[in-house]
């Protein structure tokens, strides 16, 4: 059974903390994505990566960075967490060619 696994389902962090969200996929996919999901706004792309060490900004990259040191792992970093980054974060992966994307279960992050 193919899987995208996010390290935490729920996280509570304090304002100003550095936060790491981890995502691992077991499908050998080249493409990996981080989305943020907010009510009424749908899924918005933060960053994506199409190869190891390669990354591109999405639509809302401000306040975030990413790291992809290995093909299977894609990390989202909040350099200094703020309350407006309280949200559901979804990781996804897909093979090349614009085919089906597979999503993780999501991490609900609360910044207090």
């Amino acid at each position, binding site marked *: 059974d193919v899987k*995208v696994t996010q390290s935490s389902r729920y996280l509570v962090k304090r304002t100003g903390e550095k936060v790491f969200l981890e995502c691992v996929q077991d499908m050998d996919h080249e*493409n990996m*994505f981080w*989305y943020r999901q907010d009510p*009424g*706004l*749908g*899924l*918005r*792309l933060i960053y*994506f990566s*199409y190869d190891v060490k390669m990354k*591109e900004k*999405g*639509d809302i990259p401000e306040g975030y960075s990413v790291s992809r040191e290995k093909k299977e792992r894609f990390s989202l970093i909040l350099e200094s967490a703020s309350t407006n980054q309280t949200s559901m974060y*979804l990781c996804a992966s*897909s*093979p*090349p*060619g*614009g*085919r*089906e*994307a*597979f*999503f*993780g*279960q*999501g991490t609900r992050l609360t910044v207090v």
Partner: protein
Amino acid sequence: QQPVQSPQAVILREGEDAVINCSSSKALYSVHWYRQKHGEAPVFLMILLKGGEQKGHEKISASFNEKKQQSSLYLTASQLSYSGTYFCGTLAPGGTSYGKLTFGQGTILTVHP
């Protein structure tokens, strides 16, 4: 820019039909449809490629009009299991290698007995 989905929410009784629309202001290569049940990950339903091909998945089908940059998802004889939030994701020409999808805001579908 995100595609626009309509309606934002729809409530049905079992056996009724529904249509969810997705409209983009940009040229499209393909449209994806996903369903997300409460507390779960979004799950892929189908891809529509240029050419107006209609695809089906159980009693769910979809169409894609690339000239109008619109897609519609048709849910026929709805079942309780169809409840969830439906997202369309659009893929622009030139972005196919990376699979960079831009999602709409979602349509919440609720099916009652």
